[in-house]
């Protein structure tokens, strides 16, 4: 049964059933972040690992021509690349190592601000413990049981690996004559109707008919006309172009 009585306009939307992490800013805005799970992070790490191997391989070949000096520089480089690669990229490149950049991830503090030196140093030094006793065992367990997929280093540093926001493209609303709905819509209903109109480009025709026909009865239109009716209401809500 659809609820047709209007909720008070102040009613907040129910929390979405997903892994979103809400950051409340000092302005009183809730910013949703999307923490990244184990799989995509493992892929990002593998890319970084491969890249580091490549860098070291090339450098060692070059340094081999330098003899003794090269060997000394080589040790320093090995140290630098194995312990500092992640820290430098994360701090200087907006929380993105090349692997994370590739997989569309970034590291931020718990409060959504860009990661700084000390947090990055902590989370990357403690990577050593995450790798114990073999192959990221502790890190994977911690990551799988934590609601925001934090490994031990993230817990200690207070950081979060999230999906980077991708630029949005404006969806094309289907053409329709604007129309006022037969009854007052609640806020979630209004959002749902607008969402239906905005996402219609991604849905097959049959699916949008199926979805719209659920509402045919409360809208008091025959089922085949429900899609057009919803689009018209969405246009009406949106206002003149």
């Amino acid at each position, binding site marked *: 049964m659809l609820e047709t009585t209007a909720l008070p306009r102040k009613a907040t939307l129910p929390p979405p059933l997903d892994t979103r992490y809400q*950051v409340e800013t000092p302005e009183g*805005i809730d910013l*949703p972040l999307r923490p990244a799970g184990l799989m995509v992070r493992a892929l990002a790490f593998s890319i970084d690992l491969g890249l580091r191997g490549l860098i070291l391989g090339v450098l060692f070949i070059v340094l081999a021509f330098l003899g003794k000096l090269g060997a000394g*520089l080589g040790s*320093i480089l090995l140290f630098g690349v194995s312990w500092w690669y992640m820290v430098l990229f994360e701090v200087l490149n907006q929380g993105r190592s090349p692997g994370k950049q590739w997989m569309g991830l970034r590291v931020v503090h718990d409060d959504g601000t860009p990661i700084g*030196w000390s947090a990055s140093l902590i989370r990357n030094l403690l990577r*050593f413990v995450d790798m114990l006793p073999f192959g990221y065992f502790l890190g994977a367990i911690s990551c799988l049981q934590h609601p925001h997929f934090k490994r031990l280093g993230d817990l200690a540093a207070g950081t979060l690996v999230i999906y980077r926001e991708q630029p949005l493209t404006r969806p094309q609303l289907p053409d329709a004559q604007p129309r006022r709905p037969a009854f007052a819509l609640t806020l979630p209903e209004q959002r749902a109707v607008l*969402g239906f109109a905005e996402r219609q480009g991604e849905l097959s025709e049959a699916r949008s008919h199926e979805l719209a026909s659920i509402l045919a009865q409360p809208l008091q239109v025959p089922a085949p006309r429900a899609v057009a009716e919803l689009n018209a209401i969405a246009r009406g809500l*949106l206002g003149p172009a």
Partner: protein
Amino acid sequence: MKQSLFENRHKAEWARFSLMLEQLERGKEASGIASFPKDYRRLCQQLALAQERGYSSFLIDSLQQQVLRGHQQLYRHRSRLGANILSFILAGFPRLVREQWRFVLAAGLMFFGSLIGFALLVYLFPDLVYNLIPAEQVSEMQSMYDPVAGHLGRSAERAASEDWVMFGYYIMHNIGIAFQTFASGLLFGLGSAFFLLFNGLMIGAVAGHLTHIGFGQTFWSFVIGHGAFELSAIALAGAAGLQLGWALIAPGRLPRAEALRLAARKSVLLICGVMLFLLIAAFIEAYWSSMTAPAPTTKYLVGAVLWLLVATYLLFAGRTRHAPE
């Protein structure tokens, strides 16, 4: 107000804001930067309005993205490491070490206690060394410090380039050990305790054994100089690790995760100091300790001065406030 009217009214403003964001994200000096906080707060208000009025997901999501990007530009954590290195070296680090004296004392006792204790034991009962170190490694160690074989098993005087090799090697090896000692403290402090005791026993065994067979002169004159920085750095790294572990064992009134986060922020500063110590140690080890020209007496003297320097620095530096802070 209908959504399209709302969008039309603020479109120009949003475009300007996003331009400014792009400039800021690329680290450029953006024009009109002074109004950025005001613009950001206006955007926050518009987002709140859009949510309140049930506007479409596209509008709300894109406003949310802009706010998030603005948030990341406006609220940055002040980095306490990069900005004031000098005051950290002059005062901050020794102050921190004294503030954490309990952990430093515990780590120091574990490390130096096991080192000195086992060195004495091996000196008195020489066979003990083979319980800890395999025989072939012991003989390798012996040939390295053999007084007859010139210096450290190599040709009499090392070339400058050889010093470079060892400098690089020491940095990698020692700082790696310090990092491990620190990080494994997360396992309720057990890892740090293990590495402290293990390294203490190993170094103690070598020292006791070499002294017993009469190579004491070459060994002690080699290690005393850089040991001041290197050994105290390992102990401090262990102290930082113990601090992490203790935050998990006894978090006090905070939740464990929060206690760990606070402890980690302090201990990472200790680790920065440790890195500095180890860089100095690697430098001394590669360029001074390996020299054969100075007489052992000179080396002992310099070594004693260095130990005194480290102790004075950690105990007394930063007790009074000075201008550079």
